[in-house]
């Protein structure tokens, strides 16, 4: 008797459920429209203020006095020198880290050896250390009062406040990128294809160039792309070791700051616009590469 009573009292809800309720019942992941609109607005609003707006400002300032002012700012010898230096440093960093990254990823993914976890942790070091510290390390090593300083001076070698120092600092800051892109990919792929190649009579070099490298080519490009973007954009570490010699040791990011501090808005933002374009191109290329990396991953069955 009491059970019946409870049952009769229970349905206190409207007899007809609303459309929203029906939709929610059919798709358990669906959120109410209000929530969806709020989330999307928040995300777009945030991106507009922190990403799109600054980008627009860079280009507006750069072209603020017309195209000819923009072009002549870029044609300035000091700007040219910065562009050349940046390209040179990026080339050295990408080249060095490509070799290092391939070697490290190969060792970590395909072999077991003592200290492997330590190596993996060390590869991430530049991500966790402030770039300024990374630069300071090289000052302490190669500076006049530094560890190698006296020896370098007596042999007339200039590392700090010159191309080698800037390149070293940039290599240090960017070395995780290629290795990081390749380690998971190579671990996923395993060593069976290499074993198959060797049992078919291939030499070590043939195995590497015909089997291993083609399997990771998209991963390599991905790593190189991110490494390059960071190498060209690095400020902190380079700022410490550069010495800011005008027309000689200023990279593009350093020049942007110097010009800005001198109120040369067009020149400063013209260089900045080049870096911004690099970022946009990197972004597009990254999306394309990420799609291709999926093809490199093993698909079983």
């Amino acid at each position, binding site marked *: 008797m009491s059970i019946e009573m409870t049952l009769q009292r229970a349905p206190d809800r409207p007899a007809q459920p609303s459309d929203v309720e029906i939709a929610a019942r059919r798709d358990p992941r669906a959120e109410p429209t209000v929530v969806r609109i709020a989330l999307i607005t928040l995300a777009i609003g945030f991106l507009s203020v922190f990403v799109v707006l600054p980008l627009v400002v860079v280009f507006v300032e750069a072209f603020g006095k017309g195209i000819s002012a923009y072009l002549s700012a870029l044609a300035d010898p000091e700007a040219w020198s910065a562009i050349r230096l940046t390209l040179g440093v990026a080339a050295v960093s990408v080249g060095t880290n490509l070799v290092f990254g391939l070697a490290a990823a190969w060792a970590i993914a395909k072999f077991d050896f003592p200290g492997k976890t330590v190596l993996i942790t060390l590869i991430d070091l530049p991500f966790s250390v402030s770039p300024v510290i990374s630069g300071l390390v090289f000052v302490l090593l190669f500076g006049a009062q530094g560890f190698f300083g006296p020896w370098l001076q007596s042999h007339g070698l200039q590392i700090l406040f010159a191309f080698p120092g800037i390149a070293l600092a940039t290599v240090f800051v960017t070395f995780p990128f290629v290795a990081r892109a390749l380690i998971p990919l190579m671990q996923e792929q395993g060593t069976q294809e290499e074993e198959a190649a060797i*049992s078919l009579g291939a030499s070590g070099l043939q195995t590497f160039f015909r089997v291993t490298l083609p399997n990771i080519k998209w991963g390599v490009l991905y790593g190189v792309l991110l490494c390059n973007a960071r190498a060209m954009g690095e400020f902190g570490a380079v700022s410490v070791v550069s010495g800011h010699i005008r027309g000689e040791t200023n990279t593009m990011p350093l020049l942007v700051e110097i010009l800005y501090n001198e109120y040369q808005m067009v020149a400063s933002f013209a260089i900045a616009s080049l870096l911004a374009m690099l970022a946009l191109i990197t972004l597009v290329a990254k999306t394309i590469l990420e799609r291709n990396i999926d093809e490199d991953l093993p698909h079983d069955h």
Partner: protein
Amino acid sequence: MTIEARGVVKTFGTFKALDGVDLKVANGELLALLGPSGSGKTTLLRIIAGLEWPDAGEILFDGENALDRGARERHVGFVFQHYALFRHMSVFENVAFGLRVQPRRIRKSEAQIRARVKELLDLVQLDWLADRYPSQLSGGQRQRIALARALAIEPRILLLDEPFGALDAKVRKELRQWLRTLHHSINVTSIFVTHDQEEALEVAHRVVVMDKGRIEQVGSPNDVYDAPATAFVHGFIGESIMLPVEVSGGAVHLNGRPLDLAAPGDTAGASTLFVRRHDMVIGPADSGTLHGAIIHVRSFGPVQRAEIALTEGSTIEIDAPRDRELKIGDRIGLKPRHYRIFASG
């Protein structure tokens, strides 16, 4: 080519994968390495291929020390369990790989390579897939391409690691037959690893049963099934009833009660009685040497399987023909047609 392993030992850390293995494989033979996972069968195969190095022992090819040569120089065709096809190469280039990486002085011309690849694709009946990529093939097709690739270098030995392990049941059966026929036509000394006894017994000329890094028995499929050499082989191959018995002076006791069975002369103490399920003859309750009541009956295929609670305490499963009438609750007597007794431990 003959293959011989002498006293091969291999440990991975503290795990002893191979614990002194001796084996001779005759020229042109098709041999199966059969055992549960962790029995060392794949390790032995990889050591023969040179993909793994033994801690001790010898590997001889035609009487010559194979350990003088690395995997590259052994001229062994290896088919991997997960095929290991080169994913960025077409089927054609996969098969051609072994020919293209040969040193220049012995490398075939492009035309010869094309002809050879065509011939191999015909052999595995997949010439129409030459331009596809491995990801576009079914499991069975990948397996056959992996085999064609291994055969391209005209190997002196063919090694197959769980060749059908990753395939579904129907394809497995088709490929078994096909492998036998293929082996017959190319006649290369071949060893394949499997954990599937049916596959080993159906395909191989001889079967090597392994457990815990040791060889338990080597023999023809009939030998290992009809005359298992050890308790492990009896339990692993075919389905067996196992009963713990006590042997003293040739007499067999189950839970203290004597059975009308004779133990082989050298067995004594705690032992195990092995009987194939279909080797139990069912009779009236007062006949036979084991007695019990039927507690469950299931029928499938040509047999029915009855679960029987023995008066001695254990429960066993036996197979009987479908036309034998069995009812739950019936009291019956059982007598093994064939049986074996192995000392425990």
